[in-house]
């Protein structure tokens, strides 16, 4: 098991290498450098060129990359031109709100979706099923920003229940922290729930008609238990994948929500860094997110093993 985890993590190194190379190349290729953003709209091209040259962005790609890479090997991930801090500390700082948000949103999504998905599958073909499916379709067809804006207007401006935007760090108290995160988490959660509901439903539809469900019923188990223990657990791999994916996409998919709700998270950092061509930060964020993904997927893969022994890693 340990070996397996180690192997997974080691196999990451070439991936990270390739990803970093690709990202660097991509950023190198795209027009504009940090100077444009540093100098503002009315800057003249000469100024921009001069600043870019000063920052070393006129050098050839390989030189820049090798430079960066050797620094990374020395543990130096570079420094942001805008944030006035190192990439590592910036990521550490921006990651916290995103993690909070993602976890909160995921919890909301799970609370909403799993029961709905189960209910829809169980009551297949009934009005209830139709309602669940339609609701989840609406959820997935609704652009995220519209949903967010609606929530903001309704709960923030109209009802004054939650702050419209902003972020309170955990150090300001859990209550405050959650109060600020609630609306963005809800809006993200609803979209994810839409997806999860459908995945739960469809995976349960596969398992609900298996023979072992009959066996469970023949034991005299309550329907609830039959579904929760047998159908759900057997359908778990698909649901788990979806949860893993949705959690993963929460980490990258927060760009819109974070910008809208003004939460200083990774999504916002990604967007602003791209807009500013803050290359080291982009690089750092992408690599960090890749790592996160791999970890999330690793956890999901290990969880597969818990739910379905046949999928246990290292079998055979």
């Amino acid at each position, binding site marked *: 098991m340990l070996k397996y985890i180690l192997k997974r993590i080691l196999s990451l190194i070439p991936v990270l290498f390739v*990803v970093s190379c690709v990202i660097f190349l991509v950023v190198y*290729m795209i027009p504009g450098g940090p100077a444009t953003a540093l100098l503002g709209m009315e800057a003249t091209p000469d100024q921009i060129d001069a600043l870019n040259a000063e920052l070393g962005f006129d050098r050839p790609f390989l030189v820049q990359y090798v430079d960066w890479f050797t620094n990374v090997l020395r543990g130096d991930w570079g420094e942001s031109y805008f944030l006035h801090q190192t990439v590592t500390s910036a990521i550490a700082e921006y990651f916290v709100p995103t993690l909070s948000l993602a976890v909160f949103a995921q919890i909301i999504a799970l609370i909403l979706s799993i029961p709905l998905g189960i209910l829809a599958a169980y009551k297949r073909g009934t009005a209830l099923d139709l309602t669940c*499916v339609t609701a989840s379709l609406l959820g997935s*067809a609704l652009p995220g920003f519209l949903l967010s804006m609606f929530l903001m*207007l309704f709960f923030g401006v109209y009802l004054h229940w939650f702050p419209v935007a902003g972020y309170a760090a955990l150090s300001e108290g859990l209550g405050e922290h959650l109060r600020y995160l609630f609306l963005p988490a809800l809006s993200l959660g609803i979209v994810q729930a839409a997806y999860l509901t459908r995945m739960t439903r469809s995976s349960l539809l596969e398992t609900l*008609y298996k*023979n072992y469900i009959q066996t469970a019923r023949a034991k005299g188990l309550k329907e609830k238990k039959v579904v929760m223990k047998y159908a759900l657990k057997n359908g778990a791999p698909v649901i788990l994948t979806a949860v893993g994916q949705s959690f993963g996409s929460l980490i990258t998919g927060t760009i819109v929500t974070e910008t809208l709700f003004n939460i200083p998270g990774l999504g916002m950092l*990604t967007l602003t860094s*791209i807009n500013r061509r803050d290359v080291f930060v982009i690089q750092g964020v*992408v690599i960090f997110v890749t790592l996160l993904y791999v970890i999330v997927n690793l956890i999901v893969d290990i969880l597969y093993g818990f739910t379905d022994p046949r999928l246990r890693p290292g079998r055979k």
Partner: protein
Amino acid sequence: MLIRRKSISAASEAIFREQRTLKKEKLLANPALIIGFVGFVLIVLLAVFVPIFNSTDPNAMEVTKRLQPPGDGYLFGTDEFGRDLFVRVMYGARVSLWVGGCVAIFSCVLGTIIGIYASYFKVLDQILMRICDGLIAIPGILLAIALIAALGTSSWNVILALTIVYTPSVARTVRVSALVIKEQAYVEAAKVQGFSNFRILWRMILPGVISPLTVQASFIFAQAIISEASLSFLGAGIPAPAASWGNMLESSKMVFSRAPWTMICPGAAVILCVLSLNLLGDGLRDYLDPKVKGGKKKA
């Protein structure tokens, strides 16, 4: 499954005929499939024919008539440039269906290929899945900007960028479903019967992953339509004045409290389209699933 008449007896022929009517009956007994199909075809037809028969230029501006409510010569009202929203929604359908469709198809096809092979071959699994991990982390926005730099502005940028964004998640879903199916006895049996790996993958495992795939495809379709707007924002998509549902929604953001119809009309179009596609997908799945008869599943 056409049977050559001469090779079978009269009895078989009767059975065959019965089978055909049964198929038809099953089709008709599946309202989801029919509604979805009709809805989708309707949207496609509207997208194709309204622009042909309607002479209004979707980009014609009458700025003084901006943000007119629906009615009064404008079926859906006008947008912030005084363009006819109805015509734009119809023209937008073309772009959105094209982008959504392409992205959904490409990412599902690619993701399925990756997922299925990864599930079946241990070595490939490690390689492909790690690549997916890497791909999934690259922000779509960055990709889009880079693609414009490389390819110039065209809708292919969006399609390419979004396909890259969505493929890994399809791959993972397919992979895990396939992993379960792979363990089924009939896959082993097929091996013994001499099925090539290729055939096992595509004939035996693929049908089993269709159901999560249809769900994901429709999800991606919807998301692609919406994301197209944010990438067009960067210039990666459809050149400027052309309408798409996504960019109509995006630009309604600024004015929607004043002119809600600018959001409702394209929004409803997206939702209707996704809804009918989903119904179609669900219905198709039921239709193809031999265990489902007339909406109920047989144990």
